[in-house]
């Protein structure tokens, strides 16, 4: 007798292993988002420079990631760079590098946009009221920059989390890979396993990303609506 499809999720260690895989996904996303954001903030400030060369270089960096798909970048790093430098990097390491670089590029654009969109007259009126440089940043510029940046940044984070699903294609044992292993093992007993397993992974991503999307929208309406 073939068991009910969904039971495959709860058999033995399956659920545990799925969550271990999820942890890999979360780890990659988390590290990339943190480092990407930090690098991005630095990049963003640099990007506001008056030098045309610096701005063009930053723009080129961003466009490289906007025109070439992330999966292609993963391939380039995983197959190309490792061969060129003759080093051995795990899929996970490659993923973190690629996602951090991508996140930094996008974040840099966001930070630059927020800084450049700050109304100049606010700075002028602040100066007229006698604000010091640091006070200006603390009370006027940074709170407003944060308001413009946060919803879009959360949006970026959500996109990064979704894109981490690709790491399975360069061999990382993430939640999708674990799911595939379970499907393979359950082939005879539970033929409909793939429906339930992929369905489960689908819902997992939704549970992680939907609250973030909502948060981004709520903040956007509250601050910039």
């Amino acid at each position, binding site marked *: 007798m073939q068991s009910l499809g969904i039971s495959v999720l709860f058999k033995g260690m399956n659920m545990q292993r799925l969550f271990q895989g999820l942890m890999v996904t979360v780890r990659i996303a988390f590290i990339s988002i943190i480092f990407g954001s930090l690098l991005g903030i630095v990049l963003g400030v640099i990007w506001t420079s008056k030098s045309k060369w610096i701005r063009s270089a930053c723009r080129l960096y961003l466009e490289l990631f906007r025109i070439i798909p992330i999966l292609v970048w993963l*391939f380039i790093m995983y197959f190309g760079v490792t061969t060129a430098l003759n080093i051995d990097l795990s899929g996970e390491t490659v993923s973190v590098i690629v996602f951090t670089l991508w996140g930094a590029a996008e974040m840099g654009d966001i930070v630059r946009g927020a800084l450049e969109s700050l109304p100049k007259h606010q700075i002028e009126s602040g100066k007229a009221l006698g604000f010091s440089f640091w006070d200006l940043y603390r009370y006027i510029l940074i709170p407003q920059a944060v308001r413009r940046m946060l919803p879009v940044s959360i949006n970026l984070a959500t996109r990064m989390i979704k894109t981490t699903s690709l790491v399975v294609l360069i061999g990382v044992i993430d939640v999708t890979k674990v799911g595939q292993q379970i499907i393979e093992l359950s082939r005879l007993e539970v033929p409909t396993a793939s429906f339930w397993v992929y369905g489960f992974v689908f819902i997992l991503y*939704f549970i992680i990303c939907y609250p973030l999307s909502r948060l981004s929208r709520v903040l956007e309406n509250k601050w910039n609506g």
Partner: protein
Amino acid sequence: MNLNWQFIIDSLPLYLKAAWTTLKLGFWGILISSIIGFVCSIVLYFKVKVLKTVIQVYIELSRNTPLLIQLFFLYFGLTKLGVALSETACAIIGLSFLGGSYMAEAFRSGLEAVSKTQIESGLSIGLSKTQLVRYVVLPQAFSVSVPSIGANCIFLLKETSIVGAIAVVDLMNVTKDLIGIYYQTFEALFMLVVSYLIMILPLSLLLTWLERKVRYAEFGN
């Protein structure tokens, strides 16, 4: 880095065929997404009961889950329930499913950008609701949507890189094979990057130009 140019020339046909597949998938994905998106946006704009909620659920589901998982679910999952779909069909369905919600958002923001006073102005010369939508709302909505629609087109074309995961013979798979079988890593990657640059760069420039032209038409600057 010395590239084996002979190998590159030899593998050109493979890459051209794969690029063509990518473009075809992208084309169908964009077309069907646009239709789905347009219909959804009209439903949302007119706040049609029941359908409105269905579409809102659809949009949230497709925007908050990765395309890869959607494709795996379609290709591996649904087949087990008796629905047999070719990998190309799955790819197009997957792209359209995801793209539809992005297009819906683009069209919807265009529709909502048309101010209430424009609508009142149209009403006051006696236009019916249909005439209002056709002559006043849609043309203005469209020009507002163009940048978003353009961005979505590029997005979908890039997302086609994922369909290789369900065995579509696309650029990614060709590259992987060449690396795995012939070990011509740099050549394969070089071709891969060039292929995407050739496909996406012109599109991106075209859309920037189109955006500027439409913005001029609306605002004259």
